[in-house]
């Protein structure tokens, strides 16, 4: 059952991205073009998505497990560190540059456009590079604390 709900979650999310045209990089960039020909679509998408998801958080907030008995997510961290700021800024830069990002990228892969494939391959490479760097970084820090 949880396998089915996982698949349906992705399908629903992805179809919402297509219906709202958030799979279209030009539409996303038009939202970010505040000082030009601004397109407010993403605002309406966020209002719809956040309102519905907020209700789900209220429901699980009163429960010990999910409706199908899974463990629930931990309370969110409140630490505002350099990683969050620098990471989100880098994300925003790539997002503004291309109008593409992670979730719409996945769904747009299914539209079979080569531009999306190039972006997506670079994105996965970036994730891989980050984790290799992070492993080395943690290893180095461990050695420093031990000495």
């Amino acid at each position, binding site marked *: 059952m949880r396998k089915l709900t996982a698949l349906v979650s992705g399908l629903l999310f992805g179809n*919402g991205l297509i219906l709202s045209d958030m799979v279209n990089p030009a539409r996303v960039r038009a939202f*970010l073009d505040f000082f030009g020909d601004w397109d407010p679509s993403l605002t309406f998408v966020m209002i*719809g998505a956040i309102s519905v998801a907020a209700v789900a*958080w209220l429901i699980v907030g009163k429960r010990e497990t999910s409706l199908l008995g899974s463990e629930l997510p931990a309370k969110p961290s409140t630490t505002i560190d350099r990683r969050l700021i620098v990471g989100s800024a880098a994300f925003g830069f790539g997002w503004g540059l291309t109008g593409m990002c992670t979730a719409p990228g996945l769904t747009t892969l299914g539209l079979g456009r080569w531009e999306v494939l190039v972006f997506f391959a670079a994105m996965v490479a970036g*994730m891989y590079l*980050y984790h290799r760097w992070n492993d080395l970084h943690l290893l180095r820090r461990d050695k420093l604390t031990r000495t």
Partner: protein
Amino acid sequence: MNPDWVSALLGGIMIGGGASLFLLANGRIAGVSGAIGNLTKRVWPTTETILFITGFIAAPLVYSQFSPLPEIDATRNIAILIIGGLAVGIGSQLGGGCTAGHGVCGNARFSKRSIIATLMFIGVGAGTVLVLG
């Protein structure tokens, strides 16, 4: 572009519905950067994660049964696609989330980190469009 706020709002409700189902049924935050990023950490994904990602990729197949798929307009500059992809990939892992994880799920639970991340996405994104066109 012609903004179509009805489709935007309905699409948003479907996005929120997908994120809500994943949380209510599976107890999971619908974070896409985490789901893909974990694959690059040599962490074997759960079947649920694989099916969640499959849903996103298969979405156009379902959509096309009901309505024609939209035409999309993307840059064809390979350097921009590669630099943008690297920035989104590295940034999403360093900042611990993307437009799905922070933007939809985190904001919906009023997480301070997600609100700051979203403001950074939009602020830097808008600055990039303003400066680079």
